[in-house]
C-alpha cells in the first residue's frame, strides 16, 4: 500500500525563509516569557530534592508491614508472600506466641524474622496480592537507596517503621504484649 505524501506548496513568503524564522522566534519567545513569569512551583520541572512528585494511588514503592492499633504485627507468617515473590527476595522465619492471659492458651503465629532484600525486589506487588491478611503494602516512597549492600537488607522492624514518620506513628522496636484477642480487632 503506497502512501501518497502530500506535497506542501510554499508561499513566496515562506520561501524567503526570513519570515518563517521570525514566526518561529516569536513562538520561542512566547515560551521564554511564559516560563520566565511562571512561579517555580507551577513549572513543568519538579525540582527534585526540594519538591517531590505526588505519587498516584496505585504506586508500588517501598513496602510497609502493617500493624494493629496496639502496635502488634498483622503478619501471621503464612509464607504466601514468600511463595508468590518472583524475585525471591522475601525470607520469613515464623515463631509461635501465645497471648495466654487473654485467650486461654490460644497460640498464634507471627514472623520472628521478616527480611526483604531490596536489591532483589522488583516492586511487582505480588506479595501484596498474595497476602491474606493485608499485612504488607507497597506504598509511595521511591527513595530506596543506601551506600552499602547490607543497608538494603530490610528486616522486620525496618519494614514496620518505613512509613512511621510519614503517618505520625511511633517507631517500634519490639512486639508489644497483646492486650486484646486478635479476632476481636477489626481488620
Amino acid at each position, binding site marked *: 500500500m503506497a502512501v501518497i505524501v502530500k506535497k506542501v506548496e510554499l508561499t513566496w513568503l515562506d520561501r524567503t525563509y526570513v519570515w518563517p524564522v521570525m514566526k518561529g*522566534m516569536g513562538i520561542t*519567545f512566547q515560551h521564554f516569557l511564559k516560563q520566565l513569569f511562571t512561579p517555580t512551583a507551577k513549572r513543568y520541572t519538579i525540582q527534585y530534592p526540594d519538591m517531590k512528585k505526588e505519587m498516584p494511588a496505585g504506586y508500588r514503592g517501598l513496602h510497609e508491614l502493617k500493624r494493629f492499633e496496639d502496635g502488634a504485627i498483622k503478619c501471621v507468617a503464612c509464607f504466601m508472600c514468600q511463595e508468590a515473590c518472583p524475585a525471591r527476595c522475601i525470607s520469613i522465619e515464623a515463631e509461635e506466641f501465645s497471648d495466654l492471659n487473654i485467650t486461654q492458651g490460644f497460640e498464634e503465629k507471627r514472623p520472628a524474622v521478616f527480611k526483604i532484600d531490596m536489591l532483589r525486589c522488583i516492586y511487582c506487588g505480588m506479595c501484596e496480592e498474595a497476602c491474606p491478611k493485608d499485612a504488607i503494602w507497597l506504598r509511595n516512597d521511591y527513595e530506596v537507596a543506601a551506600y552499602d549492600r547490607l543497608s538494603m537488607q530490610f528486616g522486620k522492624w525496618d519494614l514496620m517503621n518505613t512509613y512511621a514518620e510519614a503517618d505520625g506513628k511511633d517507631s517500634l522496636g519490639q512486639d508489644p504484649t497483646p492486650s486484646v484477642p486478635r479476632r476481636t480487632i477489626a481488620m
Partner: protein
Amino acid sequence: MDKLASMLHMTPAIFWMVVKVVIVFAGVMSLAAVWTWVERRGSAMIQDRIGPNRARLFGRWPILGLAQIAADGIKFFFKEDLVPTDANKRLFWLAPFLAFVPALMGFAVIPFGKSFVSGGQTYHLALLDPGNGMGMLYPLAIGGMAVYGVLVAAWSSNNKWSILGGMRASAAMVSYEIGLSLAVISIFMTTGGYDPSEVISAQGHLPWAWNIVRQPLGFIVFFTCMFAETNRLPFDFAEGESEIVAGFNTEYGSMKYSLLALAEYSHLMTASALIATLYFGGWQVPFVKDPTVMLSVASFLLKMLFFAWVFVWIRWTVPRFRYDQLMHLGWKVMLPLSMANLIFHAWRMSQGH
C-alpha cells in the same frame, strides 16, 4: 584621570590606553563567560525547562544559578588535561589560543562609547583610535583569522570527526566571508568612510536614519553571514552531535575546551558589537542628540547585549542546516543578494542621493 595617571607615573595617554585594554578585554571575557550562563538559562526557558539554578555562591546564595560559571571554571581547571596519543602535540596546544586570540582582538576598533574631552585631551572609547587607517577592515581581517583556530584544532586532534567538522566549518566561514565583505562595503560606500566612528556619526541619532533602515537587505546578509562566521547555529558546522560527535573539539577537554568555548562566546560578543555598530548606530542614543558618555556606553552595551541575546534566541529556534543547503545559501543566495545590494546603493549614489 590625570591625577591617577600621575600617581602611577604614567602619561595620561598611556594610562588611558591601559585602562581601555583592561576594560575591553575584561569586559568582553566576562561577558562571554556570563553568556554561557545566559545561553543555558535562556535555552531552558525557551524549552520550558529551568536550567542550571542549583550552584550557589559559597554554598549559600543561589543568585539565579550564576555561580554555575564559577563552578564550571573550577571544574575545567581541575580536570585532567588529556592529549590524544596520535595528536600533533604542538598544534593541539596551539589551537585554543589561535581560536581565542582573534575572537578577542576583533573588538579592538569598535567604539563602545562617545569620545570625550578631559583636560584638553580627547579620549576615545575604542582601543584603536579613529583614523588608524584600518577601520572596519580590521575586524574583517581578524574574523578571517578565526578559521585557523577551528582548522588547526580539527587537524591536530587526528580524529576523523574532528577533521570533518573543521573542514565543514572552515569552508563555510571562507565562503560566507565574501557575502559579508560585500555587505560591509556597501556601508562603506554610503558612509563615505570606513572608520567605525565615521560609520556611527554618519548614522546619526535618529533610528530611521540608521543603516538597518537604509540597507535592510545588507543587514539580512550581514546578519546571516555573522552566524556562519561565529559558527553558531543554524550554521554551526564545526560541531553537530547527530553527525560528527562534537566536531572540531571532540578531543578537547579541561581548560583547552573551555578556551575554545570562550572563544565562541567572545566571537559572539564581537559579532553583536559589529552589528550594533554597522547597522544600529553604535553608541548613538535614539532621539538624544548629544548624549552623555555614560548614556552612550549604556546604549551601546544594550544594543550589543540585545544582539548577543538574538544569537542565543535564534540558536534555540532554528535547526541546523544541511551542508549543501548551507553552501547553496552562501554562494547562490547571499552572494548575489549582497551584490545586488551593493549595485543598488552604487546606483542610488550615482543618482545623487
